[in-house]
C-alpha cells in the first residue's frame, strides 16, 4: 500500500512497490493527462511536478515518493486558468497535443524558479520532445506566460 499526495489529495493505492508513478497516475487514479511516451525518461511526456520540481514520472517509483506533494496537469487549475494554460491557448501551441501536458508542467516548474527566463534558460529547462514541431510556439507561450505572471503578481499567486 502506497499513500500518494496528488493534486492536494491523499490516495491509498495497492500496487507493487516498483510500479512507476506514471502508471499509478494513469491506471490506478485515472489521471490520464500524464502521458506515456518512451519509458526511459527521454521524451518528457510523463512530466509531473514533485515538490514543485519537474520529474519524469516513468522513472519514479510510486513507493519512493509516498507523501510528497505531486502535481499533475489535472491539478494545475480547475478551469484552464493557470497563466501557462492561458498562454498556451493564446498562442495556439498544441497540435496533436500529446506532449503538451509535459511541456506545460516543465514550463510551470521553470517559471516557479525563474519568473522571467531567458531563451537559454528555456533551452535548458524544456527538454520535452514534440514531434509536431510546436517548439517556436512553446517558446513564445513561455514568454507570454512569464509576462502574464508578472501582470498577475500581487493580485494572486501564479505558482502551484
Amino acid at each position, binding site marked *: 500500500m502506497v499513500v500518494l499526495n496528488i493534486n492536494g489529495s491523499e490516495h491509498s493505492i495497492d500496487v507493487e512497490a516498483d510500479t512507476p508513478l506514471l502508471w499509478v497516475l494513469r491506471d490506478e487514479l485515472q489521471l490520464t493527462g500524464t502521458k506515456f511516451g518512451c519509458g526511459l525518461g527521454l*521524451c518528457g511526456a510523463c512530466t509531473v511536478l514533485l515538490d514543485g520540481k519537474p520529474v519524469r514520472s516513468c522513472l519514479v517509483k510510486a513507493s519512493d515518493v509516498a507523501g510528497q506533494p505531486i502535481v499533475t496537469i489535472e491539478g494545475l487549475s480547475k478551469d484552464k486558468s493557470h497563466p501557462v494554460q492561458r498562454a498556451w491557448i493564446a498562442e495556439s501551441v498544441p497540435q496533436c497535443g500529446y506532449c*503538451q501536458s509535459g511541456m506545460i508542467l516543465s514550463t510551470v516548474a521553470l517559471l516557479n524558479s525563474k519568473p522571467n527566463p531567458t531563451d537559454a534558460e528555456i533551452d535548458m529547462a524544456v527538454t520535452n520532445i514534440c514531434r509536431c514541431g510546436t517548439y517556436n510556439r512553446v517558446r513564445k507561450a513561455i514568454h507570454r506566460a512569464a509576462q502574464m505572471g508578472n501582470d498577475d503578481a500581487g493580485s494572486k499567486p501564479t505558482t502551484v
Partner: protein
Amino acid sequence: MTYITRREFVCAAATTMGGLALSLELSAQENARPLAATARPPRTPSAFLQIGEDDGITIITPAVEMGQGGHTSLPMIIMEELGGSWKQLAISDAPAAAIYNNPMFGLQATVGSFSVRGWYTELRRIGAAARIMLTQAAAHSWKVSASDCTVDESLIIHAPSGRKCSFGSIARLAANMPVPQDPPLKKVADYTVIGRSQPRTDIPDKVDGTARFGIDMILPDMLYAAVKTCPTFGGKLKSFDDSACKGMPGYQSTVPIEDGVIVVARSYWQARKALERVKVDYDLGKLAGLDSAKVSQELHAGFAEPGIVARNDGDVESGLAHAAKRLEATYEVPYLAHACMEPMNCTARVTNDGCEVWCGTQNPQAAQTGAAKTLGIAPDRVKVHVQYLGGGFGRRGEADYVAQAVSAAKTTGGRPVKLIWSREEDIQHDFYRPAAAIRFRGGLDANGKLVALEGKVVSASAPSFGRPGGPPFFTEAVADANYLIPNFRVTGLNKNLGVRFGFWRSVNHSHNPFMIEGFIDELARAAGSDPYQFRRAMLQHDTEGARRQLGVLDFLAEKANWKHRQPGHGYGISAFAAFGSYIGTVVEASMDGNVVTVHRVIQAIDCGIAVHPDNIIAQMEGGMAFGLTAVLRGKITLQNGAVMQTNFNDYPALALLEMPKVESYIIPSTAAPGGVGEPGTGPIAPALANAIYAASGLRLRSLPLSEHQLSYKAVRI
C-alpha cells in the same frame, strides 16, 4: 474532444443506417477528381451536421484530429455556408462508414493532405442546404418570403417584420423542408469564416489533460496488454513458454499471435513485467540476413536495371551526347520511422454481439476491417470509436495494432483489453519511409542551359499506389517536376526488399525533392548560374504549375533579400509542387569547421484558398521540424534483418533548442484549396543542403547530416 451529451437531434441519427430525415444527393464534384475509382455515395447532410433544439450544432467530421487541424478547418467550411454560431459548436468524429469517404481520394482516410481539398465543395453544399432549409422553415412559419430572411450567428432574421428565431427552435420544422439539390454557394469574396483563423476546437482540452487520446481509454473491468513481436521482418512465432509468469501479480494470460506474443494482465505495468519473462522462440524468416549495407547495394544495383518509364520528353541520350558539359551524381536516403509521441495502442471489446474498438486511427474503415478479419466476422459487426491521435504522420493509417488488441480481447470472455506498445516496439515495428536512391545525369549547353536530365529513381520498397498505368508513385516530385527541360527522362524501379514500408509525412516529397533539388543546384553551379535564376529560367512556360512554382520562388527570393545576401552566409533555395500546393524554402546558414549554423528558415506556400491561415502556418513550421529531424539524424539501420534503433536515445527527435527561427508565409491565392499538412516536410532538406554548399562548398548527397560528421546549431526565434 468535446463529448456530446445526448440531446435530441432534430436531423435524424445518421451514419450507416440509412432511412434519414434528410436526403440530399451531393455527389457532383466541381473541383475534385478521384484518384481511385471508388463509388461515391450520396452525402446525407445529417451525417455531417446535426442541430439540436438547444441550438447546439454538432459537426461530424470525416477527418480525424491528429494535430493537423481537421476538427477546425472542416467545420469552418460547413459553418461558412450554414451561418451558425461558433460558440455553440461541438465536434464529433465520424464512425467508419462509406458516406465519409473523401470525395477526392475515395477512402475515409485522413491522409495525403486530402481533407480540406477533398471536402471543400461538398461541405459547403451541405452547410448551404441546411441553411436554406432552416430559412425556409422560418419563412413558412412566419408566412413571409424566404428571400427576405437572412442568417447570422445561428439566428434567422426577417428584417421587414423584425422577427427572429434560433436555428434550434426551427430545426424540427426545417427537417421536413424540401432538400435543395443544388444550393447556390457564396462567392469567395463574401466569406466571413473561411480565411479567418477560428480558435482550434481541440486546443482547450489539450492544456489541462482532458483531451482523450486512444491510450486514455478506460472501460469498466478493463484489462491491459503488452506485446512483443519478432525482431526480423517476416519472422514468425515458433513457440513460447510463459511458465515464469505464473503467479506474477495481476498476470492473466499469454496470447500467441502469428509474429509474437501478447501478455494480458490487470495493469499495464504488470503486463510489461510479465512480458519480459515470457520465453519466445521465433522463426526469423528469410530477411534475417538483411542489413543496411545490403539495402544500399540493392538500391545501387537497381541503377543498371531498366525500371518503368515515368516521363520521357525529347531524347535524353541525344541531349546528353550533345551537351557541352555533363554531370552525374547519386543521391540516397535511409529508412525512417514515424515515432509518433503516442505509442501505438488500441482498446478492444469482443462479445457475442460483435466487437468495439477505441483507438486513434487515420483510417477508421481499415481499423474496422482489421478487427473483422481477426475475428472472422463481417465488418459491420465492428464499431470503431475514433479518439484523438497523439501524432499520425501516416503511421496510424495502418491497423496492425488494432488486430493485436482484438486478438487479445477475443480471449478475455468479453472483458475489454487496452493494448499498448512500448516505444521499442514502435521504433522496431513501424511501416518505414523507404530507403531510396536516385542517379542523375544532366547536360548543359554552351550557354549553361539545362538541355538534358535523366533521373533513375530506385526505392527499396514502395506501395503500388497511384493511377493505373501512370508513373510509379515513388517517382513523384521528380517525374512531375515543373521545370521545362527539352530532354527529360525519369524511370522508377521498385526493389521491394521486404522491409515493412508505409506512408511517412510528405511521403515521396519527404526525400525526392532533396535529391532533385540538390542536383538542380549542382547543375546551376556547374553552369556558373545563380541557383535562384537557374530555376527561374526553367519555369518560364505557361502552365499553372510553372506559374505558381515561380510565384513561390520569387516570393522567397524577395523575402530572403536574395539579391543582397549576407556575406559569409550560405543561402539555399528550393521550391516545388506537393499535394496540390506549391511550397518552397530558403535557408540561411553558415559553417564553422564542421558546425552548421542555421540562422533563418523562410518558408512560403501557395495552397490556394487558405481556409485556416494560422493553422497553415503551424503546419508549415511543424512539417519543417519533422523534416529537419530527418535531415539532422534521421536514420533507421538494419542488422541481421532487424532494426537497430530502439527509442529516442538512438532515434532522437529535434529538441526545442534546435528549432531555428522560422518565418512562414502564405501567398494569397484564389485557386481551389491545396494540401497543407504534408507539404511542409520536404523543402528543408534541399534548402539546407544547398545552403551548406553555398556556405562551404560541401555537397551533401545523402542524409542525415550526422553521417557526414557535421553538427548543427540553430539561431532561435
